[in-house]
């Protein structure tokens, strides 16, 4: 069953349409990759799913219509969005960033338990607790953004280009952590990525976007295994 679904989703900034009727299904517990070149609509798709842009069409979460809800309401339903630029609260400490992640969780004990669990994934967080998040390296900020999103106890987490500007070895580590939280904690993941090879290796299903439309979609193994598709749509 689809946990998150878009049907004929259109999105516009000002006068121009950016998405032209996207259909998307994210199965419960799966990892879905959104691929495509710069400007193909990956970021806008994530924003359209979370109320960050004006849309028409349907967005269903747990079979409930959520299109038109503002981002804060979408977040409260259990959809965590790590936006473009990671949304780091730069002048806040690492601890304050994490605490803001748990903003919607009223039960302090649950947040504390959650924090203890996250420290297992990101042990370095402990030593950097009192540092301003803006002083972390790009990779650390990306990990902090993921950790902060996980503090929300989300059912699905949407990531916008987590590999952007990071060294390959850091990207590898981040993707390993994503795989772990998907498998062990059952968090559904939607990941928009330019690094198609890495994303296909991680995801169960992939959608390739071209100028605001789904050009092709299917199991990521099929896409990765078909050289012709790969060359014409993903350029590698």
């Amino acid at each position, binding site marked *: 069953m689809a946990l998150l679904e878009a049907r004929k989703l259109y999105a516009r900034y000002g006068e121009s349409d950016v998405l032209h009727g996207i259909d998307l299904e994210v199965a419960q517990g799966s990892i879905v990759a959104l691929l495509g070149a710069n400007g193909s609509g990956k970021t806008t798709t994530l924003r359209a799913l*979370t109320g*960050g842009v004006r849309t028409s069409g349907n967005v269903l979460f747990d079979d409930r219509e959520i299109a038109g809800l*503002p*981002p*804060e309401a979408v*977040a*409260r339903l259990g959809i*965590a*969005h*790590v*936006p473009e630029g990671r*949304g*780091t*609260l*730069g*002048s*806040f400490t690492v601890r*304050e960033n994490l*605490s*803001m*992640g748990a*903003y*919607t969780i009223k039960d302090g004990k649950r947040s504390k338990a959650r924090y203890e669990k996250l420290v297992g994934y990101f042990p370095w967080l402990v030593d950097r607790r009192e540092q301003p998040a803006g002083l972390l390296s790009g990779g650390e900020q990306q990990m902090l953004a993921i950790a*902060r999103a996980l503090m*929300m106890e989300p059912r699905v987490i949407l990531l916008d280009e987590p590999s952007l500007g990071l060294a390959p070895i850091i990207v590898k580590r981040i993707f390993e952590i994503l795989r772990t939280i998907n498998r062990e904690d059952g968090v559904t993941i939607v990941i928009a990525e330019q690094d198609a090879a890495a994303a296909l290796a991680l995801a169960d299903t992939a959608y390739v976007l071209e100028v605001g439309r789904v050009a092709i979609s299917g199991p990521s193994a099929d896409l990765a295994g078909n050289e012709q598709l790969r060359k014409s749509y993903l350029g590698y």
Partner: protein
Amino acid sequence: MNELAQQIVSGLATGSIYASMALALVLIYRSMGVINFAQGEMAMFSTYLAWQFAQQGMPLWIAFPLTIAIAFAGAVALERVVVRPVERAAPLTVVILCLGLLITFNGLAGWIWGYTVRTFPSPFPTTPLHIGSAAFSSQDLGIIAVSLLSLGAISLFFGKTKLGLAMRAAALYPESSRVLGVRVGWMLALGWGMAAAVGALSGLMVAPVVLLEPNMMQGILVYAFAAAVLGGIDSPVGAVVGGLALGVGLNLIGAYVPVIGTDLQLTTAFGIIIVILLFRPAGLFGRRTMRRV
């Protein structure tokens, strides 16, 4: 020595009024990027409410907290109903709205209570407090104590509570806060409420000194604005330090530099502020924003 101590204490008393009002201005500025020029008139209006309650025979220890609560709730409602439609408009639009509110509150107070200057009951004893051979006005000490307590409480609220953290996040990083589930609009309204509450408190403290009339807060707002800019317009700590420094500085200039006296003390103080700002454009505690060209 005694006289100097007395001058400093009395400067700290007026300074803590400026500091409270400056903090109110900073609270709004940080989240909206504009100075709420109506802040002073809102405080004045609240002070009239307290006076009205006292006239009805309500004891001050009920009338004052009640007034502050009304100021808080009223400002939250004001933000939601009047300010919200222009939240995303250009800063000048918001400034015009604030000026409109200034005129409205001023006119309303005159219409309801008239322009007669009225005495206002002081919550503090009138007998001076002797420490050693120096005598301090209980009123001054009371104002300092109440202001510092309220400023301390506010700083604890912003530093230690989750809601305070969310209000700071909403002001500095609205988009990032929204994806974390923060209702940014309501945080803004809460900010208006808190600013109005702090403003009302300073109105209540200063009214026995400057006496109650519809224009009583206008001069104070100018000082508060200067204090906020001196401290760094986006820094709550700066607002408090700036307010206290301005209060003490003005008092000392007036008392010890006879050439300047009370007539030119304000001009001199502003001159000093401008010189400081030439060297520290972001104010004493303000964040320097880099602008790349």
